[in-house]
C-alpha cells in the first residue's frame, strides 16, 4: 500500500517538475508559447483553404460590427480616454475600417490584447484584424501566419543619452549601462546591434516603459532605448528635456502595420485599400472638412476615388463610396496623425518617414483605378 502511494507521489512529482519548468521564468514561458504558436499555425494555415469559401469580409458584414485587436495602454496609439472610449492612432484605423464597412466608425468592438496573445487572437479568429503597433517581419508574415496591410507608421529603435556624457555614436557606449523595456523586439535588437559592433554593455531590464524611463531619469543607466516615437514623447516629459539627446542611429526598422489572418485575400484587400485611402486622400488634399466640396470636382481621379464614377468599391466587396466614408468619419492620414501624435499633442512627433512620398516620406498609395 505504502509503496503504491510512494510511486503515485513520485509520478505526480515528476509531472509537477515538468510543468513547473515550463511555467517558471517569463523568458522560457514566452519561448514555449512561441513554439506552440508555430505548431498550431501550421494547422490553421492548412484549414484556411477549406474555410476560404467564406471570407472574413462576409463574416464581418453579417455580424454588423468589426472586432479589432488593439493595445489598451500605449500612449498616442491606443488607450481609454476618461469617458471609457478607446482613442489613439491605431484605434483611428479601426474606426476607418468600420466607417468603410458600415458607414459608422462606432461599429467596432475593441479587444485589448497583450503582445503575447495577439497573434493567437488572429489565428483563432477572435479578432478580425490586429491593429496593435505590430512590426511587420518576415517570420510573422510566413510562419506565424499573418498577412500584413500597408504600414501605417514607420518607427525605428533609437537611443537617448545625456548631453553631458558626450556620447555621439554607438561606439561611445562601450561599457555603458542601458535601460531597456523587456518584451517584443527592443531588447533583442539592442543585443544584435551591440554584438555586431562588438560593444560591451550592461542591459538593465524593466517590465514597463514608465519604469524604464524612471530609472533613466534617476541616473541608474547611461542610455535608454526604445522606439524613436517613444523616445521623442518621453523626452518631452523629462525634467530638463534639453539636457538629453536622441542619437542619430537607428537600431532597427519597425514598420507598424495592421495584420489579418493569412490566406484571405478578399479581406486583406479591404484592409489594405482602406489604409491606402487615407494616404491618397492626403495626397489629393481631401480632409474630413472639405470632402463634400470635392464631390463637385471635375478631376476624374478624385471622382473615382470618392466613388462618384466607376466601380472601385464594388470590386473590393464594399460600396463605391468607401473612401468617402473613411475620410468623412475619420479623416485622411494627416488628420489621424495630427490628432494623435501631431504638434497639438504632448508628443509633437515630426512626420519624418511618415510623410507622403511627395514630401520625401515613405507613404505611397498605388493608384485608385
Amino acid at each position: 500500500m505504502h509503496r503504491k502511494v510512494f510511486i503515485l507521489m513520485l509520478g505526480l512529482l515528476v509531472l509537477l517538475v515538468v510543468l513547473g519548468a515550463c511555467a517558471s521564468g517569463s523568458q522560457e514561458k514566452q519561448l514555449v508559447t512561441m513554439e506552440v504558436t508555430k505548431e498550431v499555425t501550421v494547422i490553421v494555415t492548412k484549414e484556411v483553404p477549406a474555410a476560404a469559401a467564406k471570407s472574413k469580409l462576409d463574416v464581418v458584414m453579417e455580424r454588423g460590427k468589426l472586432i479589432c485587436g488593439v493595445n489598451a495602454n500605449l500612449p498616442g496609439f491606443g488607450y481609454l480616454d476618461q469617458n471609457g472610449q478607446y482613442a489613439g492612432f491605431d484605434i483611428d484605423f479601426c474606426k476607418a475600417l468600420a466607417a468603410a464597412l458600415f458607414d459608422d466608425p462606432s461599429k467596432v468592438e475593441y479587444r485589448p490584447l497583450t503582445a503575447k496573445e495577439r497573434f493567437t487572437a488572429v489565428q483563432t479568429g477572435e479578432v478580425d484584424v490586429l491593429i496593435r503597433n505590430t512590426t511587420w517581419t518576415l517570420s510573422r508574415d510566413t510562419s506565424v501566419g499573418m498577412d500584413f496591410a500597408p504600414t501605417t507608421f514607420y518607427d525605428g529603435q533609437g537611443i537617448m543619452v545625456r548631453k553631458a556624457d558626450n556620447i555621439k555614436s554607438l561606439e561611445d557606449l562601450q561599457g555603458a549601462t542601458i535601460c531597456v523595456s523587456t518584451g517584443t523586439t527592443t531588447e533583442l535588437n539592442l543585443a544584435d546591434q551591440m554584438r555586431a559592433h562588438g560593444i560591451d554593455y550592461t542591459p538593465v531590464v524593466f517590465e514597463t516603459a514608465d519604469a524604464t524611463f524612471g530609472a533613466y531619469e534617476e541616473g541608474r543607466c547611461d542610455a535608454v532605448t526604445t522606439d524613436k516615437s517613444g523616445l521623442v514623447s518621453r523626452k518631452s516629459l523629462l525634467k530638463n528635456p534639453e539636457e538629453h539627446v536622441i542619437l542619430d542611429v537607428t537600431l532597427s526598422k519597425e514598420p507598424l502595420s495592421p495584420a489579418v489572418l493569412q490566406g484571405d485575400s478578399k479581406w486583406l484587400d479591404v484592409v489594405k485599400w482602406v489604409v491606402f485611402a487615407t494616404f491618397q486622400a492626403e495626397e489629393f488634399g481631401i480632409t474630413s472638412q472639405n470632402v463634400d466640396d470635392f464631390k463637385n470636382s471635375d478631376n476624374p481621379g478624385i471622382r473615382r476615388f470618392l466613388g462618384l464614377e466607376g466601380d472601385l468599391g464594388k470590386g473590393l466587396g464594399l460600396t463605391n463610396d468607401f473612401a468617402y466614408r473613411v475620410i468623412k468619419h475619420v479623416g485622411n492620414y494627416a488628420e489621424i496623425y495630427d490628432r494623435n501624435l501631431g504638434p497639438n499633442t504632448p508628443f509633437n512627433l515630426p512626420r519624418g518617414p511618415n510623410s507622403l512620398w511627395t514630401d520625401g516620406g515613405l507613404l505611397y498609395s498605388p493608384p485608385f483605378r
Partner: protein
Amino acid sequence: MTPKSIAMQTRRQLLRDFLTWLKENLFSPWYNALITIVSAAVIYVALKGILHWVFYGAKWGVVTTNLRLFAVGPYPTDQLWRVWLALGLALVLGGLSWGAWGGRSLVALILVIPFLVVFWLAPITPAAKRNWTVVLFLFVLSSAVAEFVRPLRKPLQKILPFAWLVAFFVTLVLLHGFKGSQRLPLVETGLWGGLLLTILLAVVAIVLSFPIGVLLALGRRSSLPIVKLFSIFYIELIRGVPLVTVLFMAQIMLPLFLPPNLRIDKVLRAMAGMTLFAAAYLAENVRGGLQAIPKGQYEAAQALGLNYYQTMRYIILPQALRAVIPAIVGQFISLFKDTSLVAIVGLLDLLSIALSVIAQPQWIGLQREVFAFIGVIYWIFCYAMSYASRRLEVKLGVGVR
C-alpha cells in the same frame, strides 16, 4: 483639597504614568533608547517625504478626472444605472446581513459617514453623488430594519445566504443583459472593466470555488479510489502551476483546441481559470479542517444512524469549515489581489485600467499617483474582507470552546 487641585493632580499623575510607560517600554535599557530614536528618525523622514508628495508633489488630476474609468472601465454611460442597481442590491443585502447577525446600525452609520464625506468632496457628477448617498443610506436603513425589527431576525438569518446567492446571479444577468433586448441591451463582457470587473472576477471565483473546493476535499478523503485519485490528481496538478499559467492556458491555448465556431467569452475564460485554481487551494484548506475533527465525531454520527451525506452536512462540515475560516478568508483575500493578473491576458481590470490611464496623452509619466490610488483601493477591499472574517469568527465563537 479643591476639585480643581484634584484634577490638576490626576493630570500630573497621568503625565507621570505616561512618562514611566515611555521609559519602561521605549527607553530602557540604553539600546532600546537608541533603537527608538533611530526608528523615530526613519519614520519622520519617510513620512515627511510621503506627506509632502501627497499634498504638494502629486498631480491628483489624473485620478480625479478618471474616476469613472477606474470604477467601471468602458461600461457604456447610458447603461450605468445597471451598475448602480447592482450596487444598491448588494448594499441592501449587506445592511440586512449586518443587522441580522448582531451588527449595530449606529456603527454602520458611523462607518458610512467618511465614505459620504469622500464622495461629496470628490469631483464626481451630481448624479453620482446622489446615487452614492442613496445606496449608502439604503445600507444603513436596511441594517436598522434588521436590527430593530426583532421578529425579522431569525427568518432573515435563514433567508439571507440564499438571497446573496440569488443576488449574485441576478447581478450577473443584470450587468450582461440580453441580445436584442430593449430594456436590458447586451453589454459585452469586453466592456466590463475597472473595479467592477475586479470585484466580479473575485466574487465569481470565491462563490464558485467554494462548493468545488469542499467537494474536492471530501473527494480526497473519500474511500472510493477513483474519486480519491481524481481529487488528488486535480489538486496537485493545479497547485503545481502558477495562476498566470492557468490564465495563459485559458486565454491562449483553449481557443486553439476548441472548434472554430465555438467562442467562449474572454472574461468567462478568466473566471473559469481563477475558479478552478482557487478550488484546488480551497480543497486543501478544507481538508485541513476535516482532519482536525476527532474520529469520535464520525463514530457518534454513525451510532446515530446518520448516512454519509447527513454526517457531513450536520456534523463534520460545520465544525471543519468553522475551524478554517481564517485560512479560507486569507485565501479569498489573496484571490482578490490575484485578479490583477488578468491584466497580462488583456482584460481591463483595475490594474489594466490604471495602465491605460497612464497612457492618456495628457497624463503621461504620472504612474506614481495612479498606482498609489489603486493600491489604496485594493487595501480598502482586502481590509474590509479581513475585518468581516474577524467578526464572523467572533460570531461563531472560533477559538472559544
